[in-house]
């Protein structure tokens, strides 16, 4: 049983740490993109370790640790254990930390061949054969989805932590968000293939609002019915290969675990 989040008690500020594993930096950048709230957040939390933002680095333990990125090297597998032991409440931010990210495509391929394709001297490169989420290595207290995460959801997680409550992050599908936003269904109205019915909400249903189908960057939602969706995708012009690729991109490893996923 992990320690429960510590409510802000008006006394010493809780400490925040941000860590990066294999990733693009985009999810921790989301924190710096909270322009209106950044200084307020810094007022409520003591930012003790956030290399992208400050040279001031203080040792743990940390009350709240945000971890971006997946585990792809032996060194990071060790590092994530150290982070866990220094963190009272550990939140993974984004598809890499939560589902292995796009680099988990190696899980379905021959990493030796990958390494030789990119590097002339593959022997210089230390890498694991898989890209795995943080939860495959250590217990995680909360997982925030998305490639990248949504700014509003990140602020909700931080606010909930400070208030000592569970974050309000619904796990229903993107379809709910389209309805709420008033977006006409791109599949029903235009026959555009869309992963929205099987994808975790959180982005605000952006893609359909811009006239394209959802491409699943938040990973599978709580209740996924792929056998019902795949025939619709085929009807709207996708080949078997197209369907396989669509499900094997930003959250390849988590979609692959869903019942009915193409092998």
């Amino acid at each position, binding site marked *: 049983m992990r320690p429960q989040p510590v409510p802000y008690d008006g006394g010493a500020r809780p400490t925040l740490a941000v860590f990066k594993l294999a990733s693009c930096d985009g999810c921790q950048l989301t924190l710096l*993109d909270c322009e209106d709230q950044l200084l307020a957040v810094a007022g409520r939390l003591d930012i003790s370790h956030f290399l992208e933002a400050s040279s001031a680095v203080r040792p743990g333990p940390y009350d709240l640790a945000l971890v971006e990125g997946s585990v792809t090297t032996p060194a990071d597998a060790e590092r994530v254990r150290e982070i866990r032991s220094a963190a009272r409440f550990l939140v993974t931010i984004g598809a890499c930390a939560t589902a292995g990210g796009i680099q988990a495509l190696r899980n379905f391929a021959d990493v030796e061949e990958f390494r030789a*394709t990119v590097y002339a001297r593959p022997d210089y490169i230390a890498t694991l054969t898989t890209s795995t989420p943080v939860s495959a290595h250590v217990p995680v207290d909360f997982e925030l989805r998305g490639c990248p995460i949504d700014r509003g959801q990140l602020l909700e997680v931080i606010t909930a932590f400070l208030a000592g409550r569970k974050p309000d992050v619904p796990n229903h599908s993107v379809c709910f968000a389209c309805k709420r936003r008033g977006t006409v269904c791109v599949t029903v109205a235009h026959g555009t293939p869309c992963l929205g019915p099987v994808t975790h909400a959180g982005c605000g249903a952006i893609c359909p609002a811009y006239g394209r189908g959802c491409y699943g960057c938040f990973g599978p939602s709580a209740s996924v019915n792929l056998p019902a969706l795949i025939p619709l995708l085929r009807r709207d012009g996708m080949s078997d290969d197209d369907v396989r690729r669509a499900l094997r991109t930003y959250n390849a490893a988590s979609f692959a675990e869903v019942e009915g996923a193409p092998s």
Partner: protein
Amino acid sequence: MTHRGSRVLHVGSLARVEGEGALHLTVDGGTVSGAELRIYEPPRFFEAFLRGRSYTEPPDITARVCGICPVAYQMSACRALEDACGVTVDGQRAALRRLLYCGEWIESQVLHIYLLHAPDFLGVDGAVELARTQRAHVERGLRIKQAGNAILEQLGGRAIHPVNVRLGGFHRAPTCGELKPLAERLRRARDDAWETVRWVAGFDFPDAGLDHALLALAEPGRYAIDSGTPTVMAAPGSCGVSAGTPASLPIRQFPVYAFSDETTEHQVPYSTALQATLGGERYLTGAMARFAISGRWLSPLAQEAAREGGLGDPLAGAVCRNPFRSIVVRAVEALYAIDEALRIIDAYEPPDRPYVDVRPRAGTGHGATEAPRGLLYHRYTLDADGIVTAATLVPPTSQNQGAMEEDLRRLVQDRLDAGEQDTDAELTALCERGIRNHDPCISCSAHFLDLTVDHVRRSPPCP
């Protein structure tokens, strides 16, 4: 402490860069004998897993290389794939692309200026610490950054990994009514950007000069961002001009498709990022290269800011070769990007269709655009069905690695030659600043940056 003796400096991690890596300096009897920028990025193998994907996918997929400059990846990918398919995007669709790119330039350059670089000049650990004493400055930076993000969010759907870009243009083109409200915010940001130029121009800049060749895209009539021809300004050393000269030097151009012939990527044992050279020589790409090569095409307002900021007259071929002053160049570029975004919005008329059709064909395409940190090159080979069979990405930071290492070597060597009795901490801090001068986007290729200076233990010379 003696500089002839031996000592080892170690800094666990370099802060305020995008991504993480390491630096290894070897000092041997008062001479810096080696400077290695070690990039420990866990490899993510984009070039390998892009094979077998459809030609429509690389703009979204390669955006995930970098959360700081996803638009740059989307734009270079689109240009390369459209080149492969024989399609040109022009008119308002091209203008919208440039507008989106301006949003990223504003956001990214201001992020570097205020949150990553300025703290070096003001002796604080970061922008949050800076806000305790100079809150108005930090708030101004956040306001400009927010204006850049507003463009990305309106036109791209979101600021990081925007969703609206596709081959041939956009999934949906904005209405005039959607773009116009951005203008008011951008006009305020333009004033803030002017203030930024004045603010950073007043910083105290250490003496330094770089003598690398400079590489940037150039196109007549405008400051190259989303298109242009690779253009090389010769290194001062090759022309008998000293490193610190403000003069422009001879330039030459080569077509984008010759990029792989002109540059060589090679691997070093201490880095997971490939390093590039141009004709066997190290070179620098990024804001300083762009300003040297295309400064005359800045808007009149940005040119005025450059003069007022002490960079010289761009119309007279001003060149800035002090890497510490790159913060002023970035501030001028941010002002230009705002000015340019306003110009595009003012002239905007929705295109008849948001995109032109791009049909696949077998062949190879090349694309280069100016990411905030420098030239970003993509190459794709497609089969007749439009499946990617080979992909090459050359990010700016791997091109700049050799130049950054040389800058660090020179910074430390100059201190040693001057007989300065720097402490380890002072030298280390100087090296970290030397790295930040180039705004490396190590997350394009990096994981953990720490700094080690080895002073090689040698027997004292015979008396």
